[in-house]
């Protein structure tokens, strides 16, 4: 494997205290980086603002799919229960009278609308979230670092990814060094 080539994947800066991490995060945020992240052993209050994170779009996705679920339930039940038109050429439709109510009675559909709305909303939330955070993935170059294990113990990290449009080997390094990390390393990944 002599001709194995490597390219820069990310810079990993290590800090000892949450305060050092937060002030460093604000510097990185103000420098305009987008593809970067903070890694802490526990959830830290106020990191949303320190990192300049935008509100998540997951709510919009959930809402849209929830409403699609509600609409699907209405259309499905009205088509199968209420009308005799033959949209799909599969027969004449089945107007049903259940419990003495007229075919397609709206109130009896509400529980189904609710259930299907919740179901699609739940799926959209789960899979939408997985899509946004790009899971599942098998590996990430950040795990090349031995020191990164400290992120689950007592160390605080900032990683800036090489695919960020502002990423530059020299300038990014200078920026991170100016935030006084206890350790700074460039992690490389293999080019396939």
């Amino acid at each position, binding site marked *: 494997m002599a001709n194995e080539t490597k390219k820069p994947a990310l810079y990993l800066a290590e800090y000892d205290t949450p305060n050092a991490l937060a002030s460093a995060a604000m510097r990185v945020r103000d420098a305009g980086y987008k593809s970067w992240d903070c890694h802490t052993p526990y959830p830290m209050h106020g990191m949303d603002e320190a990192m300049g994170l935008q509100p998540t779009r997951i709510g919009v996705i959930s809402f849209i799919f929830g409403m699609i679920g509600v609409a699907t339930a209405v259309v499905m039940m009205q088509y199968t229960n209420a009308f005799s038109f033959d949209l799909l050429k599969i027969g004449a439709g089945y107007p049903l009278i259940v419990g*003495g109510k007229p075919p397609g009675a709206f109130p*009896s559909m509400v529980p189904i609308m609710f259930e299907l709305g919740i179901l699609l909303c739940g799926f959209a939330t789960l899979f939408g979230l997985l899509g946004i955070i790009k899971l599942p993935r098998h590996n990430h170059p950040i795990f090349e670092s031995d020191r990164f294990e400290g992120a689950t113990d007592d160390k605080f990290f900032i990683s800036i990814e090489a695919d960020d449009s502002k990423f530059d080997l020299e300038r990014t390094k200078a920026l991170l060094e100016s935030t006084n990390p206890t350790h700074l390393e460039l992690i490389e990944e293999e080019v396939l």
Partner: protein
Amino acid sequence: MTEANNKDYRVGNDGFWARAWVTPLVLAVVGGLLAVVTAPPDRLGYAYLFALFTVATFMLGALFLVLIQFMTASHWGVTSRRIPEVIMSGAPVVLILAVPFIVGVLSGKFDMYDEWQSASAHGDHGAAHDDSDSETDSVSDEEAHEEHGALQLGASVARAQDHGDGHDDHAAHGAETGHDEGHAHTAQETALHHEILADKTGYLNTKGWSARALVYLIIWSIIALAYFGWSRRQDEDHDPKHTLRMQSLAPVSLIVFAGSLTFAAFDWLMSLEAAWFSTIFGVIIFAGSAVAILAATILVGLSFYKRGLTGDAITPVHFHDLGKLLFGFVCFWTYVSFSQWMLIWYAGIPEEATWYHLRWQEGWKFIAYLLIFGHFVAPFLLLISRVQKLNLRWLQVMCFWVILMHIVDIYWFVLPQAGGFSIQPADVGALLFVGGVFFAYVFWQFGRVPLVPVGDPRLSKSLHHHQTH
């Protein structure tokens, strides 16, 4: 931060909140006069019940909001807890305001419970009309019971039709001397309807009703004043032992609260339609109370926030949290209200459907649709997004709106029993009177206490409550 910590979070001697109690008091006087002058004698009882119960739901919701926070030992709501605490401290005012109501019912001046009152007054009422049926029932052999059940259905159908035919005879019934003539059916139907009521006289009788009413009101006053008193004492001595005591008493208080609220809803609202029953009714009232108090807490809190009275103790983050709960309880109200309606609609049993039948007449039907769209669809769509809830102006408008809808909700529970749909000056006057007296007390109380529970050991945590998601 330090500057805010030095503040004592008080209303002070001038500004809006120093004199805020004057306006409700004036409204109370105006409303009281309006109600007394304009109300026909058979309307005043309904109007007063509507007003009293609407105001009571604010107090009960406040009690719930305070108790649940101690129950869960939460810190997010500490800074805004003083608002529901002060509102619940109006429980004795509700008790005093309920005295004319109870006296009116006892003396027969308020005749909205006439249906079961007269049934309980003459235990064997049915016997006067149809001897044989009443006799067989009291023997209570199985066969007679089956027959009784079948006939009961017939009576309820007739009763539902009676509502459908128009309200003339129902409205006139107050003016009638005897109760029986109000429902113009055959003697047998009337007798059977009275038998349903006769079966309930063990619970629904004037003595038991008034005794229970006093018990509910006294229980609420005791819990509210105890919690308010401990919280006030903690303002002075900053002693965490008060918090521990309130936490350890919260579970039993909540159980007592839930039971008393449910049975108060049964006694005061459900028994208006004496033959009707719904086990979820108390939960609907509870959900409405929670909606009302969350909206009221946000509105009062916003007013403090805009005038800088609470410093940075109450922030948009706290309003966002309260708004989320408001949204949740709007959905919960819908869920339980629909559950009740769905089951009754689906079963289609006349003795259950009669309650909705009455509330689905012309005029009232419009109010029912207004509740569906105004109490659910609109707040659901207009409060669902985080952007909407964090827009304080928007949140304020929505809170006014859901409080209005909550009032309409209680109105729709009570007033259809009085006849066809018409908003009478007496209804508005009664609401202004009871609401005015209650909120005059509450607003006056705001001027006497710190607007944030300054002695609470969790206060600093709540002050640093940040958005974590």
